């Protein structure tokens, strides 16, 4: 059933190839301008790209997880989260259980990473984990798992490498041109063939300015498309689009920005981690507007791709967002299920918060002391003393 995703991927791959071509054209003209040698420019562009790609492929997930200060957890650390990931892994038909990470950050967000299905991780901020009930958590995890399942993670990291290479090349080229002239070899021969040289220079300047902008727009277009598909798959896996919708609502109403996010990692998150708003926000955003995503999810009449596509079309009055092949292959209606959380004697928000902070204190090696008066003390790992006075009842507790 999953082969259909490939059609959507093919369209994305055309865009990626477009970005690749942009890189080569840029390298070609920069080579002509600075080295008098188009091949030289191409080779430099290629070398930078290959090095960055290899790093991203083999190290990308660990770099991303370490700059986000993510901590890996096991089933015992946070059973609720682990169970939800396991459920969604089964629902999506993923072969291998992804690694689960918690990021100690009060902001609300989540992301998936990893180069392929066998090396995948999902990460969620502690803030989000505290705020979501089981249905919402399921929606978020399903969205992230479908990024893994649809191979978005690899696609997007390859895209960001291309984008990065283009940006770096243009940036250095423009600085060299501003401050260093265009190299000796050109000036030596400048008595002859000035016209052709001028044209090359003009093209190179135009490319330096516009290539990064175009690359970014392509990148954002690819990224937004993947988000819709991940939302649709998320609804399909959970059969409860309201879970993801209400999670997105909570995320978008939060004012706290993810501390470790930057432009390169933004598309990895479930919702745009930047809170600033501007005129060009829609065009240059890695994510579709959240309000719209919520509206689509809420107007779904079933849980299948067809239902998502119908809901999307009702709102946009335009073409489909889900690839044709996926629509025809998803045979039969998939009914929505009702909310789980209310039935199960759901944890209240305080309990959810303590469940999550419990993990974080443990991961940060704080010691726990329970005083008889009902106070629980967390002692930082740097504390040297052997006993601690309870600030509530004044009794002395021994540190184990």
């Amino acid at each position, binding site marked *: 059933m999953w082969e259909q995703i490939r059609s959507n991927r093919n369209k994305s791959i055309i865009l990626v190839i477009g970005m690749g071509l942009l890189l080569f054209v840029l390298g070609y003209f920069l080579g002509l301008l600075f080295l008098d040698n188009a091949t030289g420019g191409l080779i430099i562009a290629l070398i930078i790209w290959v090095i960055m790609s290899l790093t991203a492929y083999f190290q990308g997930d660990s770099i991303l997880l370490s700059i986000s200060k993510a901590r890996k957890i096991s089933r015992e650390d946070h059973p609720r989260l682990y169970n939800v990931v396991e459920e969604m892994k089964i629902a999506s038909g993923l072969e291998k259980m992804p690694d689960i990470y918690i990021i100690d950050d009060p902001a609300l967000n989540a992301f998936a990473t990893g180069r392929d299905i066998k090396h995948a991780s999902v990460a969620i901020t502690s803030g989000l984990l505290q705020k979501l009930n089981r249905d919402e958590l399921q929606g978020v995890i399903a969205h992230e798992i479908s990024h893994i399942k649809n191979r978005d993670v690899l696609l997007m990291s390859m895209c960001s490498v291309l984008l990065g290479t283009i940006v770096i090349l243009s940036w250095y080229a423009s600085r060299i041109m501003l401050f260093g002239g265009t190299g000796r070899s050109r000036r030596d021969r400048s008595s002859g063939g000035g016209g052709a040289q001028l044209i090359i220079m003009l093209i190179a300047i135009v490319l330096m300015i516009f290539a990064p902008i175009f690359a970014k727009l392509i990148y954002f277009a690819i990224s937004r498309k993947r988000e819709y598909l991940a939302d649709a798959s998320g609804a399909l896996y959970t059969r409860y689009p309201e879970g993801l919708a209400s999670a997105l609502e909570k995320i978008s109403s939060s004012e706290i920005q993810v501390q470790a996010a930057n432009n390169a990692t933004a598309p990895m998150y479930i919702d745009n981690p930047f809170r600033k708003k501007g005129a060009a926000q829609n065009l240059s955003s890695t994510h579709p507007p959240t309000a719209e995503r919520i509206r689509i999810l809420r107007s779904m009449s079933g849980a299948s791709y067809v239902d998502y596509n119908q809901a999307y079309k009702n709102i946009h009055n335009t073409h489909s967002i889900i690839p044709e092949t996926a629509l025809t292959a998803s045979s039969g209606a998939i009914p929505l299920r009702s909310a789980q959380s209310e039935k199960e004697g759901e944890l209240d928000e305080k309990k959810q918060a303590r469940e999550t902070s419990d993990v974080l204190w443990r991961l940060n090696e704080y010691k726990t002391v329970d005083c008889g008066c009902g106070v629980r003390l*967390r002692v930082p790992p740097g504390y040297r003393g052997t006993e601690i006075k309870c*600030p509530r009842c004044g009794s002395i507790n021994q540190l184990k």
Partner: protein
Amino acid sequence: MICPVCKSDMFVIEYNEIELDYCNQCGGVWFDQGELELMLKPASSENNNLLLKKILSSRDAVTLEQKRRCPLCNKKMKKVNIGYPDILIDACEHGEGLWFDGGEILKLVQQLPTQSTKENSNEQNVVDFLTEVFHARKQD
């Protein structure tokens, strides 16, 4: 978390499922925005971080007391008065939370319980919670 006053690692007190960051050396307390929200939620149906917004919109108190830096965002905090005559607390301008110096906690605990006129206000709930947690310090 690092104590904004004495720069040592802070302890954490959990009471009634609410966490407070507590400095074992100077007795200062950090009440985090998220924890404030959790504590006040059942009492007030209104928007969650209303209390912080309200506190931040009040005027900067005139004081010679030294400005403290927020332990989370490291920006200088605002000195504000929360209903009691001589108790000045520090509030993070970015809404990360509230800081109570050790001495302020002591004053709060030693207040007569009925001194505040505003019953059941958010401020009163915060003060009640703090006095409940630190009531042993009355004897200090």
